[in-house]
């Protein structure tokens, strides 16, 4: 592991060759030797993944690497061809396309499927947390892309998940909105401390947010970087710039080649 040098350790950035063995009692998701095949194509080839309570994990990979496939298997949408998938039942997901039910008001979208007491109050306070209390009675179609994603986040958080799965939630947003969404996600994560598994193709996003960065390539979670730098992070910090280069290289992107 070339990155595990002195400079990086000093900067509290370290990379490990494998995902760390995790403490079983705090584990909220566990995937072992997961194979998933669609017809002839094997998308996931013996994938291992463990997520501990409260940690922020981002999963990056080239498009087509199987990121969404992994999430779908994790959420139970697709049955694995073989292998083991365990996840806490206190799980919630925010999709890339916000996926609000267009014919239910913003409030009802957040309340949809909530169980227990005070459903309306819980929905309202989740909406207030994302700063959209006053839009509770609007139709989803009147929301901007960023607002819709915030409602989607509120809907996920209202479920008080132990693991929050985010499937490229900000991919369709403009850069400025994305930055404010990062702040919002970090704030909500800091307050509720769910484990977060966020899939993204944006390396900067991964670096800005994650405790651990995983790379999905060749159907396996192949590399991990662990970051302990305080947030918010300065992406121009030399260690982070170097980490970015390393991650790009691991994704198979060679700057010299690309420019020649």
């Amino acid at each position, binding site marked *: 592991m070339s990155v595990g040098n002195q400079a990086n350790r000093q900067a509290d950035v370290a990379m490990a060759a494998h995902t760390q063995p995790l403490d079983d009692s705090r584990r909220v998701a566990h995937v072992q030797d997961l194979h998933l095949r669609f017809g002839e194509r094997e998308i996931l080839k013996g994938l291992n993944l463990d997520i501990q309570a409260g940690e922020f994990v981002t999963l990056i990979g080239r498009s087509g690497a199987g990121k969404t496939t992994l999430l779908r298997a994790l*959420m139970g949408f697709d049955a694995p061809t073989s292998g083991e998938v365990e996840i806490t039942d206190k799980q919630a997901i925010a999709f890339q396309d916000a996926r609000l039910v*267009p014919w239910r008001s913003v409030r009802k979208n957040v309340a*949809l*499927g909530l169980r227990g007491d005070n459903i309306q109050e819980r929905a309202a306070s989740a909406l207030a947390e994302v700063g959209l209390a006053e839009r509770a009675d609007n*139709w989803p179609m009147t929301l901007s892309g960023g607002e819709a994603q915030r409602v989607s986040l509120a809907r996920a958080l209202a479920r008080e998940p132990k693991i929050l799965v985010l499937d490229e939630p900000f991919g369709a947003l403009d850069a400025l909105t994305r930055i404010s969404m990062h702040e919002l996600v970090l704030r909500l994560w800091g307050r509720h401390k769910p484990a977060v598994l966020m899939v993204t193709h944006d390396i900067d996003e991964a670096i800005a947010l994650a405790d651990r960065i995983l790379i999905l390539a060749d159907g396996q979670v192949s590399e991990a970087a662990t970051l302990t730098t305080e947030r918010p992070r300065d992406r121009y910090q030399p260690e982070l710039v170097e980490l970015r280069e390393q991650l790009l290289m691991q994704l198979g992107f060679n700057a010299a080649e690309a420019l020649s």
Partner: protein
Amino acid sequence: MALAGTETIVAFSWESRMSTASSLPTVASAPDASAADATDFAAAGSAAAASTSSPARTRRRFRPGGRAWRRLISPLALLIIWQAVGELKLMSTQKLPEPTQVAHTAYTLIATHSAAYGTLQGAMLASLQRWGLGFVFGGLVAFVLALIAGLSRNGEDAVDPLMQMLRTLPLFGLIPVFEVWFGIDLLPKVLLIAIGTAIPIYLNTFSGIRSVDGSLGELARALKLSYREKLWHIILPGAFPSILVGLRQGLATGLLALVVAEQINANSGLGFIINQGAQFLNNNVIIVALLVYTLLGLITDWIVRVIERRTLTWRRGIEVTK
């Protein structure tokens, strides 16, 4: 000789009745509907931007000089030309009575009870009853069948082939068979209307259910919705626009079936008035009855459109009215 002449006229008027009855409601309603939709969507942008509620929007649509009024100009022009044709004796008023005459006939039919025709309102009620019975019966059965077929593959395999067969069956070819099976009273008429209503309602509801965005089904799984919640919050509202389309088409086809069904041994209803009018060579009466059919078609279509406007506000992005 006279008899032969009568027969030709009867045959002629039957044919013209058929084409008028079938084309009028559709021609009158369909383009109107799409135009209204276009207006709605045009209004939607500004409504959403200004965050106005629906009353304001309705006011804008019907303000003097607005589109709703402008759309009345061409029908009024037609009425004036029709009147002028009569006044200028371009066509025999026997064949084409002018609007004022038709109005007078309508008034007479309403105000006086005649042995030949009864009253117009009585006839209308009789026709409405048949239509209503057929519509409710056919509509309910079709809706339930569409749910069965739409919500499960087994249901689809069981129900859909039968409905597709029924769909291709020429509806009015059933009349002689129905007369043998069910006599010539209310039952065969109601059944004919019911089938006419059922087919568009079934087809639209079924396809509506099936075309609900699959990603919302995934969402329902992610949110761990129960089947009932999924049905109530996702599937039925998602299919609702199609269900309304089916409702409108079902009403129109049901009306068409009514017009034809009422020719079976009619002793009451608008069909009876038309038959009598044909017998007495009284075109005025026939035209009045046809206009009443059209009116019924327009009114019910309008009702469904009001329901559409009230219930599909989410599509136009107006604030929820609580």
